[in-house]
């Protein structure tokens, strides 16, 4: 081993996000500018990860692209940022179904997206990629090798 890099994930690659959504039974809809949510900001959650801390509630429900899933009443919104990355927005109210499918904070989707992006990039460099899921820890491990 010669170096170790820790990365904070950003959603930048829509093709990879579409692949991740598809692998989880969902679909990325390019150009869908609204996403389904409760429809009205209730101002009833004030945790550090509350959406209003990052975005004006007047913009809730608006997006550049969206992810939908047949088992979810609500949808995920993707909002393009100035640096080209996308913020992932979702109303996690239970009946909307998103947390059950994509995990709290849409973390399962983000993890799957990370695996798709990493595998795509490494294959492009001539590496073969093998994915191993550790069900005990919840980690995904990609073993990339090239001779």
């Amino acid at each position, binding site marked *: 081993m010669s170096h170790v890099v820790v990365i904070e994930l950003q959603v930048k690659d829509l093709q990879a996000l579409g692949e991740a959504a598809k692998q989880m039974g969902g679909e990325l809809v390019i150009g869908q500018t609204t996403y389904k949510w409760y429809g009205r900001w209730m101002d009833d959650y004030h945790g550090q990860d509350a959406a209003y801390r990052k975005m004006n509630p007047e913009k809730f429900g608006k997006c550049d692209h969206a992810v939908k899933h047949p088992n979810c009443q609500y949808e995920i919104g993707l909002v393009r940022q100035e640096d080209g990355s996308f913020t992932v927005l979702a109303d996690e109210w239970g009946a909307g179904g998103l947390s059950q499918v994509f995990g709290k904070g849409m973390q*399962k989707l983000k993890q799957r997206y990370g695996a798709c992006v990493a595998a795509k990039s490494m294959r492009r460099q001539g590496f073969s990629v093998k994915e191993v899921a550790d069900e005990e820890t*919840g980690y995904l491990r990609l073993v990339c*090798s090239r001779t």
Partner: protein
Amino acid sequence: MSERIIIRIDPSGNPTIKVEGHPGPGCKDITKAVEKALGTVVSDKTTNEYSLPAQAEASRHVNC
């Protein structure tokens, strides 16, 4: 010599990349593209192998 890169993605989606079998500063070139694709680097630590000359490392692998 075989190059191996291990990418671990934690349950919240944040990745860690480890390079194996590629001594010297050249190892950073291999991961540049995947780092950029995944997001923002928050930590980058070199290991002992990083400072080894490529040839010395190659023979060490052959002798193993």
